[in-house]
């Protein structure tokens, strides 16, 4: 069995950036496994521009952005196996794997959690099903779209109901138009982008309905994809019926009350042949769950520490598999950190510091739904630590405040915050140290939205 220092699952923006950064931190034994026929992940179907403003200080299309990272991976000679589906990641292994362990002097009894290898089972047309051993694994599988079924929308189940991303793939990569008269449910970014894309392809996008009283997408996408094309956005509306037994023939929308229940008498039926859904993205963590990675019920992504390491030592997560991002630039940045930390883990292996390190638990409260990371080991913290999170509602002229052991350490005024836009705070290690008693091992950092 081949063994690698770092095995990365997924060659999307997260996996590619993680690979580059692990390489630049001195690791040479890196393998990327990608199920698609080319690297770049979902960016390959995002042919609109707006990518890379933070990373490259210019506006790129999705494929262009991906290409920058693909080139960096190629320049470094990092091994990337395409058309390869990862079937399983485990800490258990067969007899062959155990002998590899022995060869590398790994004593599983001594310190199983940090020393043991991970075993990645993959499959492809050319190589069949095989395992590789990994000293570290970086989870970069991205996310998937929430399907119609998960929403319990009543009605028939005809052809013509697509998630926005599937429609995007059909149009941009396969060259097909999924429909001509379209209703879109959900104002997630892909839905908004597809409203424009379908319009440009000659389809009539009649309306975008959003269950919540605010959009789930970026403001700029509402302006550039709906307003510019005169497509109405109906907030606090949902689909209450789908007509058509074979192909979609119509969709009925209704207004919803504050508890998101449809209000009788507000129904409005749109004749259409297509319903696109942009109703949320779910981190794709089946492999993580199989490995025993602890997942957050809020994000559906792994719970990670400051190094983006999961509860399984040596297993890191970044990008949309960790939590769904709005901007790929932040995915790249986060993945860079994961790659660097995986490299540091390998360099550090066998030189573990004494137990009982100082740990800060981050507690998201009033209005803050979650944070990534969810805890910080002070000894492993860099000079600064970016904390990313989302809020649960729209807030205007509010403050994001952080309290360490009940003492306010950060207060940041925010004119507008919305669930559709990721927020961040940057912690300084220097500052944390002044508030942390070294004898006290466990601390609590509260992050909350406050009106005054």
């Amino acid at each position, binding site marked *: 069995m081949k063994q690698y220092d770092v095995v990365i699952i997924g060659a999307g923006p997260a996996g590619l950036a993680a690979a580059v950064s692990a390489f630049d931190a001195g690791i040479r034994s890196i393998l990327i496994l990608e199920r698609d026929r080319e690297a770049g992940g979902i960016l390959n179907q995002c042919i609109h521009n707006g990518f890379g403003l933070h990373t490259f200080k210019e506006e790129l299309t999705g494929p262009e952005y991906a290409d920058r990272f693909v080139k960096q991976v190629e320049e470094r000679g990092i091994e990337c196996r395409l058309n390869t589906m990862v079937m399983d990641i485990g800490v258990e292994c067969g007899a062959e794997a155990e002998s590899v362990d022995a060869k590398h002097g790994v004593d599983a009894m001594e310190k199983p959690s940090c020393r043991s290898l991970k075993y990645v089972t993959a499959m492809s047309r050319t190589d069949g099903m095989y395992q590789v051993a990994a000293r570290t694994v970086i989870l970069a599988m991205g996310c998937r779209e929430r399907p119609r*079924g*998960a929403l319990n929308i009543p009605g028939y189940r005809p052809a013509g109901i697509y998630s926005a991303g599937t429609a995007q793939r059909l149009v941009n990569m396969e060259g097909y*138009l999924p429909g001509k008269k379209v209703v879109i449910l959900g104002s997630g970014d892909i839905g908004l982008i597809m409203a424009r894309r379908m319009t440009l392809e000659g389809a009539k996008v009649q309306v975008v309905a959003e269950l919540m009283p605010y959009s789930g997408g970026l403001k700029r996408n509402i302006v550039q994809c709906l307003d510019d094309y005169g497509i109405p956005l109906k907030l606090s509306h949902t689909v209450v019926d789908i007509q058509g037994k074979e192909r979609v023939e119509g969709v009925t929308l209704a207004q919803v009350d504050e508890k998101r229940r449809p209000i009788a008498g507000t129904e409005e039926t749109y004749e259409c042949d297509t319903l696109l859904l942009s109703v949320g993205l779910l981190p794709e963590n089946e492999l993580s769950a199989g490995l025993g990675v602890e997942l957050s019920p809020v994000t559906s992504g792994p719970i990670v520490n400051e190094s983006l390491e999961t509860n399984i030592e040596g297993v890191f997560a970044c990008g949309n598999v960790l939590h769904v991002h709005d901007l790929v630039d932040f995915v790249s940045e986060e993945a860079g950190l994961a790659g660097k930390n995986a490299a540091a883990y390998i360099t550090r292996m066998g030189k573990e510091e004494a137990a009982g390190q100082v740990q800060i638990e981050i507690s998201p409260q009033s209005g803050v739904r979650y944070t990534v990371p969810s805890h910080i080991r002070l000894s492993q913290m860099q000079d600064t630590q970016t904390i990313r999170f989302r809020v649960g509602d729209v807030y205007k002229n509010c403050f994001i405040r952080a309290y360490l052991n009940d003492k306010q350490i950060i207060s940041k005024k925010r004119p507008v915050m919305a669930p559709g836009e990721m927020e961040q705070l940057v912690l300084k290690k220097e500052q944390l140290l002044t508030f942390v008693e070294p004898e006290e091992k466990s601390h609590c950092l509260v992050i909350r939205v406050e009106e005054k």
Partner: protein
Amino acid sequence: MYDVVIIGAGVSGSAVARELSRYKGRFCVLEKEEDVCCGTSKANSGIVHAGYDARPGSLMAKLNVEGNRRMEALSKELDFPFRRTGSFVVCTDEGSRQKLQELLERGQKNGVEDLQILSREEALFLEKNLADEVVAVLYAPTAGIVCPFGLTIALAENACENGVEFQFDTEVSAIKKQGEGYVIETSRGVFKTRYVVNAAGVYADIFHNMVSADKLHITPRKGEYFLLDKGAGGHVSHTIFALPGKYGKGILVTPTTHGNLLVGPTATDILEREGTNTTADGLAAIREKAGLSVKDLPLGKVITSFAGLRAHEDGHEFIIGEAADAPGFIDCAGIESPGLTSAPAIGAMVAGILKEKLNLSDNASFVAERKGILNPAKLSAEERNRLIEDNPAYGNIICRCEMISEGEIIDAVKRPLGAKSLDGVKRRTRAGMGRCQSGFCSPRTMEILHRELGIPMEELTKSGGDSRMITGGRKEAAQ
């Protein structure tokens, strides 16, 4: 001139066809949809009932128990998923215990074996997530679960391989007595036959009434369901029925043969025979009632909801046999629950009638065994690698949720009565049936159907008819 024309390629029609193919003759199945298993047979609970529900002495009771007994051997012979998991009928109030006893006695009269009443404690030992209100249960170890698509498709494929003809997209519009036989007018021409088997599900009364003065009446009774993610599949390990009580007929909770959890059905009589739409009220009713017998149901893990129609005959009895005033017209009507369970027995019964009437002789080349689509996940790593070496398509995963390879999809398309649509592929392989509900694999499956069958992309359908997946090419692609 056919010897027998069977109307309907659901589980009953397919079972009849398969049992009939044991004999020599010209047999044909007419189906209005593009595939087998498109009506009642595709949207039901997938339960193999033990047989304590039906009235003792009824045909329903007899065929239920017999179908249950035949199912296991049949599942091995025809290679479809079946598991004898056992079922519970739960009683949630002390006052209703007597009803459990009545069910037990009825079951015993029907010939159901091993029925027993368990105390709450005994039941919890077998099923930890029973609702706190459960006081006792009727345990039926002979009950089981079956894949309804798997069963129906297996029967039809085997019938086809043994010489039965299948005509799809063929909707019957009229049936007329002519001489010794019948003339059947359809959307795709006229079929002449000596005998007709009416296995038309919710349409069976219409066809019966075309030839008989003794009118039948069938009501489409809608049942709505939630299908939950495999992550919830272990929530119960038996089929859990509620005792019919003050809330009416309850909602069942069951594992499926593929490891999902199924919750439903509702029961609403409707007029529309194609009314397979789910409704806000129906879905709300499932949510409300589901928790009565099983606690902590993870309804957040619903991956899809669907509705099926039961062919409810006014007398709530299977109508099987020659219509009294229409010689040569064999009804197989009113096949509602436990119709799926009974199918193997129904097939044998109807084929028996026809053998006698037509004086059929044995089909010497009849092959009873059928191999299902190879499931590589059941192979050892070594076997699987050999398979991929021989046919690399088995190394290419198309459906990530169910981990279905291209090899399996090609098999589904190429075999007898192969899949022609996305739903056809889904019912045969499960590609698209997982938690992402085909978001990932549908463009890839379309590509395979296009390539293997030579169907233009624009003509590819979800489920035949006008259910086209795309409306054309992109502007620049068209130029």
